[in-house]
């Protein structure tokens, strides 16, 4: 499972750089699994960073309990944030003073993976909330690629030479686009992805601490250099890309328009008070 640094073209039927994973997720039986559900769309509205994180927990648990249909939600960002992975240390990943000086809030999500810097117009983030049955029998690496296969198709339809680089990277010939993370609980899977739309490389390098070891297998010396934001690779407005992604999901898997329910928002607000907004949670690993 090596990450390519070259632009070697893949066979069109190969969605990932790993032939075995590509072959596994091409199984028509897997495509039928998506179609077994009535997928619901929650469109993007700007929300505070902690509300986005709390909603991920609320909606995952509700899908797991069968209280909400499997759902695709696009995030909106009301303010900038650094979102830490579940097992990352704050001081190891973030320059707290610089973040504070730029009004960037530090928050922690329920999934593992790496820190990301999200600015309101800078990122496109979505969450998929699915019953565990959707990925039954798949390895972790297979499930990541399976969850995002529709996005690779969507990016290819925009003319990008895009592919999945296991474990969890969405990438293209113009650079890395985004990364995925999963949390699994309540018999449900949360699979969420952040893609760079436009990037302030200087701010990124000031706020996030990305050491040499992290880049040791990438053949590069700067994290900003390996990213190819979507605006640069497509020249499309952010909303146009979100609309296109939504259309492709609808075509591939089916999708009904929906919305957040007032009780879901209320439950998330409560979780911000008891967990996501607390120092104990954010500084779980100082």
């Amino acid at each position: 499972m090596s990450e390519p640094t070259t632009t070697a073209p893949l066979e069109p039927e190969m969605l990932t750089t790993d032939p075995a994973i590509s072959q596994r997720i091409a199984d028509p039986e897997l495509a039928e699994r998506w179609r077994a559900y009535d997928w619901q769309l929650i469109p993007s509205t700007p929300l505070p960073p902690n509300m986005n994180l709390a909603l991920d927990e609320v909606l995952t648990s509700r899908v797991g309990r069968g209280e909400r249909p499997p759902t695709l939600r696009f995030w909106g960002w009301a303010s900038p944030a650094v979102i830490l992975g579940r097992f990352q240390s704050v001081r190891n990943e973030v320059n707290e003073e610089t973040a504070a000086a730029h009004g960037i809030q530090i928050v922690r999500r329920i999934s593992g993976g790496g820190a990301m810097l999200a600015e309101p117009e800078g990122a496109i983030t979505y969450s998929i909330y699915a019953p565990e049955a959707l990925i039954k029998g798949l390895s972790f690496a297979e499930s990541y690629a399976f969850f995002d296969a529709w996005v690779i198709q969507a990016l290819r339809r925009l003319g990008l030479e895009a592919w999945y680089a296991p474990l969890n990277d969405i990438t293209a010939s113009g650079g890395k686009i985004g990364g995925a993370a999963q949390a699994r609980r309540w018999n449900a899977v949360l699979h969420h992805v952040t893609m760079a739309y436009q990037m302030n490389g200087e701010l990124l390098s000031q706020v996030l601490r990305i050491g040499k070891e992290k880049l040791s297998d990438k053949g590069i010396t700067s994290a900003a250099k390996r990213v190819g934001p979507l605006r640069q690779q497509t020249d499309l407005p952010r909303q146009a890309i979100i609309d296109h992604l939504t259309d492709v999901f609808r075509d591939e898997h089916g999708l009904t328009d929906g919305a957040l329910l007032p009780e879901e928002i209320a439950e998330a607000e409560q979780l911000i008070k008891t967990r996501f907004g607390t120092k104990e949670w954010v500084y779980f690993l100082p």
Partner: protein
Amino acid sequence: MQGQYKTPGGKLVAVDFEVVDGQLRNVTVHGDFFLYPDDAFAALSGALEGAPAGLGEAALAERVRAAIPAGAELVGTSPEAIAIAVNRGLAGAKGIRA
């Protein structure tokens, strides 16, 4: 002290610790790896707490492996990667390049 190791094509793991009387103390494992379920997390640092600093990579890895609860799965890193991170931390503290 801290040691880090990035699994090629995988994720980064870092281990922060001190050595007191020849044993690893105040151990914190962290990084951008995945662990399912996430409540198995405390077992990673717990496995290394009190381990003799002279223990080799294989024995350190075995301690971590044995501490991971049945059914839990580390994704993107491994007990071996965690052991390498510890040894790099020890070597770095002695001014040796691991």
